[in-house]
């Protein structure tokens, strides 16, 4: 019976960690989607040849913080302008195409901040062939704040949850050992070596942890299936087009491995404590 208490406790604890992890993943997905919209535009001088432009694009691509560069040609710029203004009436009487070609650069997540932007600006501004660099400063600042809040509170809560889980699991396993203390003592008196006595406990702890991880994954999946439809309305508002995502296999196996590590560490801690 002590075994099942440990499995249950580990699974409950991992369920909490996992649920939090799930929320963070979906928040991340959301931030990522917003982040994709964050572009910095570099307008190009008119005289560039196609080769020069390609070379320049390559140079820009290699700048730190740049995730991707897409080229918007003069024709495309005109198209977009017409679309936005609902016709070409404003351009009547102007000869040719007055709009410049441009590079639209998306940013790596770590550069999505005022600091990241200004580094990128300085780096691109000086390049020959680039006329002007523009971005929506306010949008970026707000984004950076929210992203850092989510990230920091993610770390803090994740850390607290993990420590709490470890503490609870180690305690549970230790109580289990305490209930079997006679057995451990007898084994030692009859001449069992430390390894002989401990190995089964460590294996058991690890196995219990893995079972706990599996159970937690199952519970999370069930909860996910039950709750996401009923939250859809609110979620749609928050997530935009982003579909709520569940863990992939890699993340589930990370949860199971996490359980195994918890069980093992808990067992080791409990056994170490017994010595004193």
């Amino acid at each position, binding site marked *: 019976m002590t075994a099942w208490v440990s499995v249950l406790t580990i699974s409950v604890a991992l369920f909490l960690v996992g649920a939090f992890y799930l929320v963070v993943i979906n928040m991340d997905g959301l931030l990522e989607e917003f982040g994709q919209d964050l572009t910095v535009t570099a307008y190009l001088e008119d005289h560039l040849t196609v080769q020069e432009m390609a070379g320049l694009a390559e140079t820009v691509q290699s700048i730190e913080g740049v995730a991707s560069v897409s080229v918007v040609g003069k024709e495309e710029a005109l198209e977009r302008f017409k679309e936005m203004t609902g016709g070409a009436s404003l351009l009547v009487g102007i000869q040719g195409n007055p709009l410049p070609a441009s590079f639209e650069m998306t940013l790596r997540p770590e550069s999505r901040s005022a600091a990241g932007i200004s580094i990128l600006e300085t780096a691109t501004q000086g390049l020959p062939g680039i006329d002007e660099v523009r971005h929506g400063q306010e949008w970026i600042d707000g984004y950076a704040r929210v992203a850092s809040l989510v990230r920091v509170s993610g770390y803090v809560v994740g850390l607290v949850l993990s420590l709490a889980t470890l503490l609870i699991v180690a305690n549970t396993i230790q109580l289990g050992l305490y209930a079997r203390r*006679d*057995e451990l*003592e*007898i*084994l*030692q*008196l*009859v*001449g*069992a*070596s*430390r390894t*002989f006595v401990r190995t089964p406990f460590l294996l058991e702890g690890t196995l219990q942890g893995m079972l706990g991880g599996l159970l937690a994954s199952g519970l999370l999946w069930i909860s996910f299936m039950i709750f996401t439809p009923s939250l859809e309305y609110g979620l749609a508002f928050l997530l935009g087009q982003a579909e709520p995502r569940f863990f992939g296999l890699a993340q589930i196996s990370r949860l199971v491995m996490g359980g195994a590590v918890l069980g093992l560490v808990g067992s080791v801690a409990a056994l170490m404590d017994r010595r004193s």
Partner: protein
Amino acid sequence: MGVVLDPEKSRGSGKFHPRGDYPVRMFHVSKSYSPGTWALQDVSLEVGRGQFLFVTGQSGAGKTTLLELLFAAERPNEGQILVLGRNIARLRGGAIPALRRRVGVVFQDFKLLPNRTVEENVRFTLDVLGTPRREARSRVFNTLRQVGLQHRRYDQPKALSGGEQQRVAIARALVGDPEILLADEPTGNLDPELSVEIIELMIAAARRGTTVIVATHDISLVQRYGMRNIRLEGGRLLEESQEGTPS
């Protein structure tokens, strides 16, 4: 005979105990659990290979303490103890299990594993020694038959009477064919006829070369056999009488 640990071989070689004739030697040993009182005081003793020794004494005289020192469950405060050639006081943590595997112990309170069957309790000694499963099973069965409990082998200790539990403890100590057998009050819960049978099992072990030390308060049993016999009183070794080894 064990397979991994053949008693004849290790006993004969003298490798572990140069003075192999005395697997148990104590020199001026004292043991105190709390300052000012002595559970054992200045005890010196040598027990030869294959010898059978009764330890008698009143309740609290130090019999259990003496045995506990011999399998390193307690450490002496003073004096030297050599068991199978090893100095108990200097034994490192890792060496204790190795020593204990060569010593069979019948505990006064049995110390059976409550959640295992009788068979598992007895077989455990052999598992620790690394005896192959098949051989272990037949040795366990034979030993349980010797103490009259082969039909209870799938029961748990709590389903056994006091005397039956005691015999399981005895079987566990005997099954590994140890070099030393320490038995603490092994007939405390047995009627006279069974007591005689059990003592005779131990005498048979002594004949095969095991050094046997039996703590008991049953003086009629001690008188019945002409064995060597020491008496403790308040932790002191008082008298020593009737030297002898069964032959």
